[in-house]
């Protein structure tokens, strides 16, 4: 029975992988144009899929996420973000430390040449505190990004609620029974 379960588990994993890959491929094909129009391409810096998390009306803070590519020949870094949505905007990193999710301000987010930085939930993000207005899903907000070398870029980030998580961290606490 265990063997069948094992086999079934790996089989369904493999099938899930294939379905996921096909899904990704389809998404890429069908939404390729939309992505292109949403991209902000300013010289060597490329900002993709920028979004701000919609939070309840009375929430004190939110965060912005995006992928920043560096097509240049030189290592660069995001050193500052500004938006009128918050009174205080900082670059932050969420990470697991001693079993606790901790969020700390960082001086910069590295953009290696030919590489990219992913700002995503549970990792690097632009922390927006002291919200000056509502975060209405579907609306857009401007964010000015300043880099160490490349000229500043102002991008438009769409406000949305974000997707539920898919369990990338693996199992929970060890069962102790």
């Amino acid at each position, binding site marked *: 029975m265990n063997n069948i379960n094992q086999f079934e588990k790996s089989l369904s994993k493999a099938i899930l992988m294939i379905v996921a890959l096909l899904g990704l491929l389809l998404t890429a094909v069908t939404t390729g144009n939309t992505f292109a129009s949403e991209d902000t391409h300013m010289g060597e810096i490329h900002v993709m899929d920028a979004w701000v998390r919609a939070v309840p009306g009375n929430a004190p803070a939110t965060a912005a996420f995006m992928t920043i590519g560096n097509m240049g020949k030189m290592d660069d870094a995001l050193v500052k973000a500004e938006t009128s949505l918050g009174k205080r905007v900082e670059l932050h990193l969420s990470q697991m430390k001693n079993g606790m999710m901790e*969020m700390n301000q960082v001086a910069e987010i590295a953009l290696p040449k030919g590489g990219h930085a992913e700002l995503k939930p549970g990792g690097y993000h632009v922390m927006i505190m002291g919200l000056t207005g509502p975060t209405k899903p579907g609306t857009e907000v401007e964010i000015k990004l300043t880099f160490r070398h490349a000229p500043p870029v102002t991008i438009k980030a769409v406000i949305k609620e974000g997707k539920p998580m898919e369990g990338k961290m693996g199992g929970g606490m060890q069962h102790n029974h």
Partner: protein
Amino acid sequence: MIRRFILPALLLPVLIFFLRQTALASEEELPLMTKIGGEFTLNGPNGKKLSLSDFKGKVVLLTFGYTHCPDICPTILVSLKSLLAELGPDTENFRVLFTTVDPERDTPELLSRYVSHFGKEIIGLHGTMAEIKKVAKMYKSAFMKRLTEDPEVYFVAHTDFIYLIDDQGRTRAVYHHDENVNVLARDVRQLLRGGTKK
């Protein structure tokens, strides 16, 4: 030659379907996690005392967080919102308890309005720092105030556990904040169906 492969190829999806059904039917019963959790009393919305035992007969998810948390806590709440949608009418016997780890800034009103935005089944719990620390300790959760250079700004580092508690107040599973919603729904349903250890 080709014909030899057609039949197995056609049968494979059927086989997979039946194997899946078997796996679902023989789904492992969630264990009793006797060393984690227990009865507690905190303040619910409007300052009303709420105990875990008040939810007897309901399946509960318990988590810790705070409203100034812009990343992990909304991520948990968006997942819980999606879980509530997935559970549909089953939410009648299901509640989420979101306990603040920042009682200083999270007033009961702020907390309540914040969490109920994600679903009316989500209840914000509040208390003194000592009361909340005690509950966190029982559940092996932890949190710690993290000051910044600016005296007006601080954050709270906290464990990201979500606890699944059965209709008799017993902890049955613990997840991280990014657990797949389908896994949460599957386990909640198991307990709602009466997957209760006697």
